[in-house]
């Protein structure tokens, strides 16, 4: 033994659970305990049977934590790419006549036929004529091919979307004349709810829990006098319908549709004739009192009283409206959407991270009610520089776009760039409650201060606006400054980040608005497949960093349930029987499962097995794979599982019982006996596996470990990437894979129980040889590096503690201790 240098202490900011970065120099030492690696003979035997009859590839992996999920996504998309690539090849092989040169192919077939008939004619001709004809025909043929190519080639260069869609001009759409006396729908029914006004039966047969949306074809509606009832379609509404049409929701089969979207553009009420638009709606082929029809409207109402919902009578149709108030919004039926700001597409604001900015509070809206402007200016007078109230510019020279400029006194500011200079931005109600300024403000990462009583914020059904905005009652406007100042800086920064994220995800484009609206409706119809609060609201950085433990409820399972021991064995019957006998002495054992992994040899006869007090079951596997030990067998009835190798004969009954007790206190962790550590090798810049006597552990070997049976399910069906197959192919590292899986999904460290000791082969000495041991360590290190790359992160947590019985090694009468026989070598 030699003295070791003191280890570098970790920086105080490091989590206890974060990856350990240590000096490798300290880890070579007195090999007091050899890692008894798998014996070479066993290894050879294990090597046959690489394959996976029960391996099922589940592409959906929502069970991984989000980090894993993103990696998984990459994996999936890579695989998908691969599949498509091969599909392409397959197509080429199989049906050359059905590809782009279809017509050419037919001609070729025809000419071949002609040639076949040829021999009957040609012998009668002279040889030189024959040559002449043949030349002639080949020229004709070539010409034809060339023409064919010319005809069809350009199309195959164009994108496939355009290939499917006919090109038309909007001026060519059919005109529909609406008689003056055609029916008008009832006014909107305020008591509508999904279960009263929505015909959900239409959505009954949609596969994959996805509603199907039909879009009516575009028509131009004119009244009796030939006056158009509205603009045929606006740019935004066209974008919106295109987005729906390109999405998974779209169907062109009106009979299978669950939701109907009229192509009648009602985004802006100012641009349409109310009565005639209503008549146009009523004559839609599936109108049926507006059931399951969805209308999009961003600017409702009109002078003088500006209703907060679209005035067009629409009966039972759902309204996705911008600017609802609590009095017009039908909770759980309508969808509140943002007012799209065309500036979003025009202006590309430079990225600006959260933090404090030049102005604390900014008002940039131009048309404010004079009362409000007075209030704001009073704020400015009171708080000086930190408040900026902007107005229209009156002195701009001709040709300057007044929409993009704001002024304060004589100072001119660029809009929306100036929003990036402010921490909080006021979004006041105008005549309408919904303001396009909200979108601009969010884009600039400015926290909106919403002053519009009774306004239903966009997508408020799913978005948590408390995280991204401050709502101030109108009468409290004068207190706005002090309300905002009470918010701590850290929270402001979170709100700025959140505001930016809301814009990126739900405000940025018409497409984002349309798809979020459909998703909300979809989630109402298929609530069991709905998107969660976190998926709606957490910015990607949070999703990436957070862990949601699948066993989050603090709960200590009752001791009476006991555990199921699973012994993985190949053919070491004698050792196996010893393990069974030892394990059966543990009071809390409720069942013993032997996984017989040898296909060439039958398990011993029933009479030869040790007689034990609990049920013993033998499962024969179809193939010799390591992952068989983690299969969620139906026989496992308890939550706790003890995985144990068939050569772990040194664990005492006290140690096992204590291990089970520890698992009950930590049911979401791996609780095991032999502990291992991963280290960062600075020289090689990669991870290294460590089995020496270290002060830390980050893994426990599943040669003897308790864990929750749910992890068996995860290991078998939700293991990210190719890890499972990789483990089976290499016949190694299934335990490391399990450690990665559990640490990644729970975010918690393992618990090592009881002192270090020898677990198997008491006669095992260093005879195994250094070389074998070293190759073993190299292989294990490779596993860690491989898994870390598949997970995209190093999920393992390093801890410095292990669990012992309360009175372990205490000066206390041994016979009074619950677990006296612990740690004996």
């Amino acid at each position, binding site marked *: 033994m030699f003295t070791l240098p003191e280890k570098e202490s970790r920086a105080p900011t490091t989590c206890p659970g974060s990856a350990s970065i240590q000096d490798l120099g300290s880890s070579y030492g007195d090999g007091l305990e050899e890692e008894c690696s798998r014996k070479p003979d066993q290894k050879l035997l294990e090597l046959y049977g690489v394959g996976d009859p029960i391996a099922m590839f589940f592409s959906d992996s929502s069970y991984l934590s989000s980090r894993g999920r993103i990696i998984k996504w990459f994996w999936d998309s890579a695989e998908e790419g691969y599949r498509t690539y091969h599909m392409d090849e397959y197509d080429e092989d199989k049906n050359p006549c059905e590809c782009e040169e279809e017509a050419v192919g037919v001609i070729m077939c025809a000419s071949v036929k002609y040639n076949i008939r040829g021999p009957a004619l040609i012998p009668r001709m002279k040889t030189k004529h024959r040559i002449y004809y043949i030349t002639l*025909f080949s020229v004709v043929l070539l010409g034809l091919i060339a023409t064919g190519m010319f005809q069809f080639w350009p199309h195959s260069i164009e994108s496939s979307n355009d290939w499917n*869609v006919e090109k038309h001009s909007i001026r060519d759409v059919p005109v529909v004349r609406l008689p003056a006396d055609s029916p008008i729908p009832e006014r909107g029914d305020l008591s509508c709810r999904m279960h009263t006004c929505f015909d959900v039966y239409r959505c009954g047969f949609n596969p994959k829990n996805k509603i199907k949306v039909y879009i009516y074809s575009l028509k131009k509606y004119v009244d009796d006098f030939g006056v158009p009832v509205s603009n045929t379609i606006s740019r935004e509404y066209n974008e919106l319908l295109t987005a729906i049409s390109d999405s998974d929701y779209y169907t062109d089969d009106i009979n299978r549709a669950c939701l109907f979207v009229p192509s009648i553009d009602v985004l802006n009420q100012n641009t349409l004739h109310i009565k005639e638009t209503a008549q146009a709606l009523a004559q839609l082929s599936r109108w049926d009192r507006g059931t399951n029809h969805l209308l999009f409207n961003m600017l409702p109402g009109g002078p003088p009283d500006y209703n907060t919902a679209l005035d067009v009578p629409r009966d039972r149709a759902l309204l996705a409206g911008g600017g609802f108030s609590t009095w017009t919004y039908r909770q759980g039926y309508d969808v509140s959407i943002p007012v799209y700001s065309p500036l979003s597409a025009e202006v590309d604001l430079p990225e600006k991270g959260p933090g404090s900015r030049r102005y604390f509070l900014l008002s940039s809206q131009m048309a404010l009610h004079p009362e409000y402007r007075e209030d704001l200016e009073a704020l400015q007078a009171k708080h000086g520089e930190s408040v900026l109230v902007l107005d229209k510019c009156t002195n701009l020279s001709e040709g300057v776009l007044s929409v993009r400029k704001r002024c304060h006194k004589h100072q001119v500011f660029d809009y929306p760039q100036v929003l990036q200079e402010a921490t909080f931005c006021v979004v006041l109600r105008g005549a309408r409650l919904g303001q396009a300024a909200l979108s601009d403000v969010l884009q600039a990462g400015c926290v909106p201060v919403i002053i519009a009583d009774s306004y239903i914020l966009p997508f408020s059904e799913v978005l948590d606006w408390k995280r991204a905005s401050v709502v101030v009652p109108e009468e409290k406007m004068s207190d706005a400054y002090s309300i905002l100042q009470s918010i701590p800086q850290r929270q402001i920064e979170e709100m700025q980040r959140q505001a930016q994220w809301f814009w990126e995800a739900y405000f940025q484009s018409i497409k984002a608005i349309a798809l979020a609206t459909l998703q909300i409706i979809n989630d109402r119809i298929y609530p069991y497949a709905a998107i969660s609060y976190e998926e709606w609201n957490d910015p990607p950085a949070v999703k990436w960093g957070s862990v949601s433990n699948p066993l989050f409820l603090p709960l200590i399972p009752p001791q009476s349930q006991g555990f199921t021991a699973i012994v993985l064995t190949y053919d070491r019957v004698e050792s196996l029987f010893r393990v069974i006998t030892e394990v059966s002495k543990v009071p809390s054992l409720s069942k013993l499962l032997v996984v017989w992994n040898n296909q060439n040899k039958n398990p011993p006869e029933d009479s030869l097995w040790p007689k034990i007090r609990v049920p013993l079951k033998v499962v024969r596997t179809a193939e010799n794979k390591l992952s068989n030990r983690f299969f969620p067998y139906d026989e496992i009835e308890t939550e706790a599982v003890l995985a144990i190798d068939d050569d772990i004969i040194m664990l005492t009954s006290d140690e096992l019982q204590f291990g089970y007790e520890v698992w009950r206190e930590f049911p979401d962790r791996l609780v095991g006996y032999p502990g291992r550590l991963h280290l960062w090798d600075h020289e090689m810049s990669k991870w290294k596996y460590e089995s020496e006597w270290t002060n830390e552990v980050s893994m426990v070997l599943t040669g003897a470990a308790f864990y929750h049976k749910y992890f068996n399910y995860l290991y078998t069906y939700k293991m990210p990437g190719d890890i499972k197959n990789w483990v089976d192919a290499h016949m190694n590292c299934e335990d490391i894979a399990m450690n990665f899986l559990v640490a990644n999904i729970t975010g918690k460290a393992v618990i090592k129980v009881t002192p270090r000791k020898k677990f198997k082969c008491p006669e095992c000495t260093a005879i195994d040889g250094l070389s074998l041991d070293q190759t073993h360590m190299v292989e294990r290190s490779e596993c860690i590096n491989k898994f870390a790359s598949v997970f995209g992160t190093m999920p393992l947590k390093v801890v410095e503690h292990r669990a012992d019985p309360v009175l372990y090694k205490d000066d206390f009468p041994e016979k009074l201790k619950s677990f006296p026989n612990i740690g004996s070598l």
Partner: protein
Amino acid sequence: MQSWRRKSLWLALSASWLLLSFLGIFPLLRLAVPPRSRPGVPQGWPRWLDADLLQSFSQPGELLEDAPQPPQAPHGGSCNWGACFDTSKCRGDGLKVFVYPEAGPISETHRRILASLEGSRYHTFSPAEACLLLLLIPDTSTSECSSVPLQWNRGRNHLVLGLHPATCLRTFQLGQAMVAEASPTVDIFRPGFDVALPLLPKAHPLRGGASGQLRQHSPDPGVALLALAEERGGWRTAGTNSSACPWDGRCEQDPGPEQTHSRETLPNATFCLIPGHLPDASHFLQALQAGCIPVLLSPRWELPFSEVIDWTKAAIVADERLRLQVLAALQEMPPARVLALRQQTQFLWDAYFSSVEKVIHTTLEIIQDRVSGASARPSLLWNSPPGALLALPTFSRSLHDFPFYHLQQGSCPEGRFSALIWVGAPGQPPLKLIQAVAGSQHCAQILVLWSSERPLPSTWPETAVPLAVIEGHRKVSDRFFPYSTIGTDAVLSLDAQSSLSTSEVDFAFVVWQSFPERMVGFLTWSHFWDKARGSWGYTAERANEFSMVLTTAAFYHRYYHTLFTHALPKALRTLADEAPTCVDVLMNFLVAAVTKLPPIKVPYGKQHQEAAPLPPEVPGRGPELQPATQDCINQLAAGFGHMPLVSSRLRLDPVLFKDPVSVQRKKYRSLEKP
């Protein structure tokens, strides 16, 4: 000539054939196989040739230059938060609630609810300074509602709370008052203004309450998939194989797996189907308590506390018209979702529904959150353990500051701690202890809480970390006051008589970082049920298990100071002040009630136990504590409504603790000194 003719013939033929192919075949082909609509590809919305020329839905000026218009007055009759609640009275610390005293004869439960409210942190005796005025509707459904009280003021800032459906609520002149009633129908419920309460059974416990029935995370393999709420009040369980039968009662052909249960029993199934009619709302809480995932079919009533509770995490609200689809979805539901839903039902039950007191406090906290506006609790606080009643927004708005959310936030607790040394009556500055603690690399500051009659010593030892002295009010509960000088998440609470080594402090702190929501201590007590006396007891005897750690030497999160001072009922804190040992028990009760987990014990060197026994005035040294102090645990258990303490049988030691390996290899070697 022959050849010429033949030549011209052939030429003509080929030319005409060429022409034919050009003119005929393509159109023919196009007719036969329209190339632009291949089967299987849906005909999408057309790509207009002139799409770029389309006008925007609004002109640039139009969005900005709305005609200004004075603010709308709220429509008569319907109220919302902004229009009908005056938050100007609600400044300052926390919601102040005035409760109208009982008028006339009231039931026993009603009286107890009033008493419990008066003992809570919300209560104020003056209606003038109250932010909210609470009118409790008696649960006698027959009698008339009491007449409009004195300070009614058209119901402004009033909450009319009816725990049980009361007919008189319909006739009551509400004015601008908010209504909190059990399972209101969706038609009359005003979101963001009214509060939906759960439909409580008549005999719901006032305080504490039965904990959830869930004993294990994953469903038992043998358990039935479905239980259907029956109109008579019981539950009917059905196996997985019967598909449509639970719906229409046509199950006669398949009576095997079915069982009907009486009214009282809780359903033992994975999912509980609850039809949407109002009378079935009472089944909802039963299912929640049993850990049976409620599947609500188009409920006509508002789910309890829907304003803050994200019910999609604990229940499935489905359309009753898509029954078969719902059934199929339940059968195919991935195990992870089932697992999460089950656990959430239990968490919600324990956090908000298990007692009348919790239901009322939740109602008040919802209103508190509305008042606070920007500094209201984030959704995560309401929807993940330990729940909003135990996560006070007054402590911090940032989730990182709480001990509970590090995993969800991907953050980790701070790497430093503050040592808080309480100097009691003897008034000896604990010099040795200060040196030992200051020697820890993780120590950020040392705070001495001087609670002695003696004057403050003028000099303090030189330490590597800042040392500050706080003068206490000589009350034991001062030890857990949230002093603003505590600058770190972790607090090491110490007594002047405690004796610790630097190694012990270091190791205990590293362990605490892995369990920031628990207490990590050195000396332990355990509680037990004394059958002879029929009451709880606790002992300091060394045993194979423990359930409390002494706060004379323990790490815990500074948030527990806030919780101790602001969330505990005053009566309990007074109790602790009167019997000083009780304060340890109280703190352990509090942390266990929040975490539902035992504390953690770390090794404590034998040398201290002999050299410096704990102060004699701290009982618990003797084999059995005095009956008087024993009574503390029973009073606390009554105050909490249940026994929150949980026992543990393990101690966390350093990985190489007492292993047969060179001491030089061990990081915490001085822990092993004999």
